[in-house]
């Protein structure tokens, strides 16, 4: 037997001995991780839901009023701008979209809620949403609409009843409207539910809106057309009461609006920072008292000829073990809460690998930093003092 002696796993043996302290540390780190996951989850859900509409637009270029900022902060422009753009080389087709919150009466309890109505030309494929595409032609009939599958309970159990084959007729801004189909679009922090209807039906329901003044123009290009060249041409030909941008930039602008012009982005970022600090303080407390309790033993080890580095590694390993042991239940609990939140709010709370890795790295940094702070106490372990 020439196998070298395996080193003692001192950090783990030390952590394991104090069960109560270990559990407190794991609970503390799990708690911090759950907080971080939730803040990031809400933030992610906010942004991905906020731009689902944008990404569904069937066109490379989007035209907006120069004063539009977000789906919840819109301004109108004349659709003549859109038809002006139709003449530009490279443009295949243009489609107007009307958007407005309209009063929806819950057919079950007659309560009135604002629903976000999208008015499209039923002859065009304007939205790349399967449920809309499948039922678009039915919107040619007067007083018809498609209802949002992911909408909140407040609007009534429309989807379930529709799927059960019932005829659903309800009042939208005091007009009787029949639901002809369902489509899927997640609610956002600003919009609880969507309704898709034809432009003509939209103007009937939203009788306060004037035909010809639209909210969004969708521009579809010919295959192979240069998006930037068309954009440049549009900007030079169109007056500055409208702005044009790519569909991706449109989505980015929506995210930027939520991030910068509302407190939402900041709130969630701050939440992550606070969770990070809370977790860090917990790990520091645990490691500090652990090091303090074992100071005479550490001094003994130094006297026996162990280098400082060995002891630093022990504390550092303890921090990483705690980080991993806290991270596993933290992630599991966060996944559960994502599910519950998703179910209760219909927000698209989704975990992705990138976020898991990010939180793991944050946890490791948090623990290592706390370990580094606690290690300063190790300097107090003077081997000359133990005699």
């Amino acid at each position, binding site marked *: 037997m020439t*196998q*070298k002696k395996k080193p003692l796993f*001192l950090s783990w043996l*030390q952590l394991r001995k104090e069960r109560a302290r270990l559990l407190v540390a794991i609970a503390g780190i799990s708690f911090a991780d759950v907080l971080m996951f939730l803040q990031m989850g809400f933030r992610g859900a906010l942004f991905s839901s906020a731009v689902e509409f944008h990404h569904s637009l069937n066109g490379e270029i989007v035209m907006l009023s120069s004063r539009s900022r977000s789906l919840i902060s819109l301004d109108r422009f004349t659709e003549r701008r859109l038809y002006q753009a139709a003449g530009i080389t490279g443009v295949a087709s243009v489609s107007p979209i009307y958007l407005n919150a309209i009063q929806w009466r819950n057919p079950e309890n007659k309560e009135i809620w604002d629903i976000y109505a999208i008015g499209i030309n039923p002859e065009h494929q304007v939205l790349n949403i399967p449920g809309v595409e499948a039922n678009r032609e039915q919107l040619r009939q007067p007083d018809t609409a498609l209802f949002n599958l992911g909408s909140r309970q407040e609007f009534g159990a429309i989807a379930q009843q529709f799927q059960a084959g019932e005829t659903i007729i309800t009042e939208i801004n005091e007009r009787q409207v029949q639901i002809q189909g369902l489509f899927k679009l997640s609610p956002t922090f600003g919009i609880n539910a969507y309704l898709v209807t034809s432009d003509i039906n939209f103007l009937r329901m939203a009788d306060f809106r004037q035909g010809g003044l639209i909210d969004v123009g969708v521009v579809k290009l010919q295959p192979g057309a240069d998006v930037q060249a068309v954009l440049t041409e549009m900007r030079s030909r169109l007056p500055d009461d409208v702005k044009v941008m790519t569909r991706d930039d449109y989505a980015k602008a929506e995210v930027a609006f939520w991030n910068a012009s509302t407190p939402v982005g900041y709130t969630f970022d701050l939440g992550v920072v606070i969770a990070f600090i809370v977790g860090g303080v917990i790990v520091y407390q645990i490691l500090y008292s652990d090091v303090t309790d074992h100071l005479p033993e550490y001094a*003994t*080890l130094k006297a026996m000829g162990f280098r400082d580095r060995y002891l630093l590694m022990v504390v550092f390993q303890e921090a990483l073990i705690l980080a991993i042991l806290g991270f596993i239940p933290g992630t599991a609990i966060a996944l559960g809460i994502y599910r519950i939140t998703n179910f209760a709010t219909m927000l698209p709370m989704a975990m992705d690998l990138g976020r898991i890795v990010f939180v793991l790295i944050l946890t490791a940094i948090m623990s290592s930093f706390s370990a580094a702070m606690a290690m300063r106490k190790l300097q107090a372990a003077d081997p*000359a003092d*133990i005699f």
Partner: protein
Amino acid sequence: MQPIISVRHLNHYYGQGSLKKQILFDINLDINRGEIIILTGPSGSGKTTLLTLMGGLRSIQEGNLSILEQELLHATKEQMTLARRSIGFIFQAHNLLNFLTAYQNVEMALEIQDITAAEADTRIRAVLGAVGLEHRMDYYPSGLSGGQKQRVAIARALVSQPKIILADEPTAALDKKSGRDVVEIMENLAREQGCTILLVTHDNRILDLADRIIYMEDGYLVNSSNIATLVQ
């Protein structure tokens, strides 16, 4: 033969500036291989300071001190750490790691030695057997008596087969019987391994176990002729 510990004109001070106080005065001492020496004297006479200097636990300020032919004056931290690896320390408090079993506590001393797994296991079992703890190997210190803990500490100091053992009041916390047992075990093991023991103690009950007794008072070594009268 070269002495295993050699001390020449050693002075040591505590404190800075006007509070500076001399603790050791011109210590000269040679200790040979295999000797068992008891260092005794009243509290505050500087015994422990001398012991920590010999053990490489404090830096030498003035004079020369060499252990195992290595000069400790101006030694770096790393040199002192390495020098300590050939010394077995036994402390007044056992200073065992409370989260390790008796076996693992002894094993710790071999963590910094280059040794095979089989050799380590053989040595740990042998030394714990020698201190009479073969049936307590998997006990944590909290489950052992004071004497048993001190015996684990001795096993830990001896398992790496050090050339020198430095012990500070190893019997202070023990009753007469276990105190004497502990020192006898130490002595037997040391004689088997041919190692040198320097033992600081107040305990008159164990003075007869020494080859030589050194008496210290107020920071001076008192010359040996006087000691003879002292012991009687």
